[in-house]
């Protein structure tokens, strides 16, 4: 069940790719040697603190910073007008940009410091810079703000209905965009002709990423050269450099963004926030290093939350239970302003995945984006795809129940058939490869499904409620190609860049434009490059996350690093090998076409003459004997732009027992069978699945940002927002199948988000399966004990029965189980 990790020294060079070797990142991380942003201490460094709004929505009539400025240890206080001074802002926009546009998008200004209005509690009103953290904090408390409170709402439905008042002059009715995908007419016909339909109203709640390391930045300005260094918790330093240069008016080539060790991201460190730009701005203005570290409660109010959908979804089926149509209407919460990738998440990352693993002939989805008084909403692990997968898989379970077919059978009969790949969905994307039955069969075998249904029946007779839930998810990662992304509204290309450089002594540094934050890129990239170059793994060092070291890059998010970054490294390695081949051919006096490369050796076919690649590297720098017109040195840079997304898939199964009396849910088993294509390091793949599933279970059972009617966050600390603890997450069984990606050189598909995409609906389906005898077909997430208990009670009340009376329910169960069957 658990993959055993290997010491890299015990792995043959030829086997390094695909081996579950231990991570080389770990020694620094387990000894305290790692350097996270807040660990950086610079001479003369100042500390910044930010005063944020007390209200979800308010006009600001006055900001009095007098008392704060007079405090001992306070160096400067800035309000909007102070930073707008040209001497401070240069020609910066001081507006946070949006990196994805839609035709119907109503863009709104997002100032780094609120000018005269605040639109969510995290909106920054003033910053204080002081000699230490404590004093900076004290001074924010001494700033006096006069607010005129306005109506506010955290709910997209309410905001669209006008209950939040108007957030922005440029977005009438708080509508950020209207978007649709699929064929409305054909879908309507499918529903008209359907033998069975099911409908589901659901809320995919707002989640807060809760990376263990809060966001932080340290900026250091060098007046002599006008160079500005920004160290920050970033998933994509190059993108931050690009965006920040415009915001603060600093030339991109004089701005360095470096991500030191980063303590998790889960999406919330992709986006460009006002805070980090303010750190850079004030450090440049004061000509002293400045540090800002978010407190956790500050993070709850400012880190971009994810999800936030209110949806109605319907499924049409024919008489035999074949899915014939899917219709979706979603109100998506975008928060107070548009975050970096916000418009893409509830549209192209969501609507395009609505076919799931199924061959659905007609699909239509419409999405309305709403401005509300919560922090700007953006990608959180999975970003759009969990929302799609959740509703498809909830409908599959409800559809199976409606059609009277076993839920596993129902799925199998509707899968895209193996021979249909590449499969063109009705929602724009083309699935690259898949064999959806494989993980399903493996999962059924692992949980011993037939035996489970028997056990379930026996248990119900004893008044115990077991349930099983399936999730056959699809995910799309490595968003690509750039041309397509551009057509869809992306304001950036979605390639990845790398540089592979031999040193004269034969070791290699591989640079990649991705920026890992816990994924183990240092290990997996070295496995890739060592394999390509045929050199020992320990001879390859990987460098990421620093705009001064790496030419260009797009960062780490959307499970793209292996598929796109890894492929870029392959491409650079191959370029390098080609150059080395020519040098080898020259020195071996052979035709390059006759020189074969294998296991790090260039050999002339049919002879025993050969040269090792390390030898060639040395020769390339000596440059004593090179082919005509060839430059010395041995390195290669490449930009890899994939042909398509990659589409990992799998089946997750949750087995739970629900206590209707207390509403408590216990896991009996959790099985994850994932097909993420080829695996570079199975141990790391397994770890990604574990962590992803835990976050999915978190969404299913524990997590959710709760706001009151004034858009005041009520779950604003770790005492109130339940980040799952060790006792909340079950041991999981992880298995995999391998269907290589056909269009990238590694055949990899991406694994970072799979678990999070798969898990919630597996758990919800299991709980509703367990509570079927009570007539419960849905429970909103997070399925707290109270919600489960309420669901049981409400249903019992509706039936005129007694919730706690399990005996009556048992009778109903038996009857239903007979028709439900195990066929």
């Amino acid at each position, binding site marked *: 069940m658990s993959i055993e990790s290997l010491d890299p020294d015990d792995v043959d060079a030829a086997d390094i790719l695909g081996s579950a070797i231990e991570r080389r990142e770990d020694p620094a991380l387990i000894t305290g040697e790692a350097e996270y942003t807040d660990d950086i201490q610079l001479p003369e460094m100042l500390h910044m603190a930010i005063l944020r709004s007390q209200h979800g929505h308010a006009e600001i009539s006055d900001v009095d910073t007098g008392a704060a400025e007079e405090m001992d240890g306070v160096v400067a206080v800035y309000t909007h007008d102070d930073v707008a001074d040209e001497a401070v802002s240069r020609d910066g926009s001081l507006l946070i940009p949006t990196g994805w546009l839609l035709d119907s998008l109503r863009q709104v200004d997002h100032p780094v410091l609120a000018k005269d209005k605040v639109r969510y509690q995290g909106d920054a009103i003033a910053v204080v810079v002081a000699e230490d*953290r404590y004093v900076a*904090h004290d001074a924010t408390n001494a700033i006096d703000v006069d607010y005129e409170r306005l109506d506010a709402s955290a709910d997209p439905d309410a905001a669209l209905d006008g209950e939040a008042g108007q957030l922005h002059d440029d977005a009438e009715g708080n509508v950020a965009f209207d978007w649709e995908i699929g064929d409305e007419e054909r879908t309507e016909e499918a529903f008209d002709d359907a033998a069975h339909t099911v409908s589901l109203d659901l809320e995919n709640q707002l989640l807060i990423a809760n990376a263990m390391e809060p966001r932080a930045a340290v900026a250091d300005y060098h007046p002599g050269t006008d160079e500005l260094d920004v160290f920050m918790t970033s998933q994509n330093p190059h993108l931050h450099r690009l965006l920040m240069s415009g915001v603060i008016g600093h030339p991109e080539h004089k701005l360095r963004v470096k991500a030191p060790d980063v303590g998790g991201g889960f999406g919330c460190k992709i986006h460009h926030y006002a805070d980090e730009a303010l750190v850079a701005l004030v450090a440049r203005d004061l000509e002293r290093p400045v540090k800002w570290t978010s407190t956790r*409660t500050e993070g709850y109010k400012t880190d971009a939350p994810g999800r936030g959908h209110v949806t109605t979804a319907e499924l049409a089926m024919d008489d035999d239970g074949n899915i014939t149509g899917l219709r979706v209407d979603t109100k998506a919460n975008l928060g107070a302003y548009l975050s970096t990738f916000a418009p893409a998440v509830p549209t192209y990352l969501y609507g395009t995945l609505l076919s799931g693993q199924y061959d659905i002939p007609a699909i239509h989805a419409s999405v309305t984006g709403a401005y509300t008084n919560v922090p700007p909403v953006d990608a959180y692990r999975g970003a759009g795809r969990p929302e799609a997968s959740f509703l498809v898989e909830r409908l599959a379970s409800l559809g199976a129940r409606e059609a009277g077919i076993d839920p596993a059978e129902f799925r199998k009969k509707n899968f895209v058939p193996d021979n249909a790949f590449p499969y063109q969905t009705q929602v724009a994307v083309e699935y690259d490869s898949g064999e959806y039955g494989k993980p399903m069969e493996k999962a059924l075998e692992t949980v011993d499904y037939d035996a489970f249904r028997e056990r379930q029946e026996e248990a119900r007779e004893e008044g115990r409620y077991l349930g099983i839930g399936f999730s056959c998810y699809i995910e799309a990662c490595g968003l690509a190609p750039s041309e397509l992304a551009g057509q869809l509204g992306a304001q950036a290309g979605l390639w990845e860049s790398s540089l592979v450089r031999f040193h004269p002594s034969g070791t290699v540094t591989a640079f990649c434009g991705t920026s890992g934050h816990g994924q183990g890129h240092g290990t997996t990239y070295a496995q890739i490059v060592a394999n390509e170059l045929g050199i020992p793994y320990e001879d390859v060092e990987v460098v990421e996350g620093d705009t001064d070291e790496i030419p260009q890059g797009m960062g780490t998010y959307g499970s793209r690093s292996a598929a796109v970054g890894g492929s870029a490294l392959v491409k650079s390695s191959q370029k390098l090998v080609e150059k080395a081949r020519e040098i080898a051919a020259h020195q071996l006096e052979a035709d390059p076409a006759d020189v074969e490369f294998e296991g790090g050796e260039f050999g002339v076919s049919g002879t025993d003459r050969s040269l090792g690649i390390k030898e060639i590297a040395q020769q390339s720098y000596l440059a004593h004997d090179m082919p005509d017109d060839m430059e010395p040195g041995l390195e290669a840079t490449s930009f890899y732009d994939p042909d398509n997304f990659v589409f990992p898939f799998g089946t997750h199964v949750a087995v739970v027992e629900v206590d209707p009396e*207390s509403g408590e849910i216990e896991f009996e088993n959790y099985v994850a069978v994932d097909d993420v294509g080829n695996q570079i390091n199975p141990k790391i793949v397994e770890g990604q699945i574990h962590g992803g599933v835990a976050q999915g279970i978190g969404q299913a059972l524990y997590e959710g940002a709760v706001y009151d009617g004034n858009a005041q966050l009520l779950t604003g600390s770790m005492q109130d927002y339940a980040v799952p603890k060790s006792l909340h997450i079950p041991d999981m069984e992880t298995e995999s199948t391998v269907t290589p990606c056909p269009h990238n050189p590694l055949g990899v598909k991406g694994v970072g988000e799979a678990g999070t995409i798969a898990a919630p609906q597996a758990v919800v389906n299991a709980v509703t399966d367990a509570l079927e005898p009570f007539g419960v077909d849905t429970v909103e997430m997070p399925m707290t004990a*109270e919600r489960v*208990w309420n669901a049981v009670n409400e249903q019992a009340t509706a039936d005129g029965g007694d919730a706690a009376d399990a005996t009556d329910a048992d009778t109903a169960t038996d009857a239903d189980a007979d028709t439900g069957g195990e066929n």
Partner: protein
Amino acid sequence: MFPDEFDYHEAESVSEAVDLLEAHAMEETELLAGGHSLLPAMKTGLSSPDVLIDISGVDELRGVSVDGDTLSVGAMTRYSEVLDDDAAHEHAPALTAAIEQLGDRQVRNRGTVGGNLSHADPASDLPGPALVSDATLVVHGPDGERSVPAEEFFFGMYATDIGPSELLVRVELPSADGAVGTYAKKPSPASGYPMVGVSALVATDGDAVSSVRVAANGVMDHGVRLEPVEDALTGETLGDDAIEAAASYAADDLDEAMMMDDLQASAAFRAQLLEVYTKRALQDASERVSASAAAD
């Protein structure tokens, strides 16, 4: 993350602590014990006292001792120290059962029994055990010591019978004398504090329940005895039927309108949990009674 400024004084003795309290009577003054309720409140800006008087190092306030039939727990005794003490398990099983489930490992290493009881958070774990153990809380002030029965100690949310210049010095628990103590708790998944925590102390004579005391934390604004449950169970045979019947009375004397009602659980659900967890606390007691009978 950053407490506001304050003056810190470390008391070496109970009398010094009382002197300090009196000397700073005109300022906002807090006693610092384990600090696990106070410091988080200060760090998040909810609390900003002018003066902290640290009593955690006062030796006379630390330790567990037995005097005749009474177990005495010094107010500054850490949870982990109570759990390490065999006499505490023997004489105050309801207390140790609750402490085992209190907070987390680090909190138990640092938090104190007296800090918990003085703080009187409605969701503390220890008021229930204090009530079922019929504990006496000994408070020291300018006029010396006075004893307050647990029943009279808790006034309401964060409010106790400790006066402005007084501090809790120890808790005295009459020996359980062989009774079985249990604690069944439904923790908030976020904070770990009980939405409902039920403490039970059950003594049997043969199969029959000779005495039973049950109390709940987290349900009302302070710990409460569940007398209808006790009445229903006393004299009955300790088995599933009697337990189920008794637990059904758990909320009978409680005004649902005054029950804790928050994001973690509504009052109605708390009432439901109270019944379920009363049952579990008593079932656990029943199992322990059977187990010890079998062992005999």
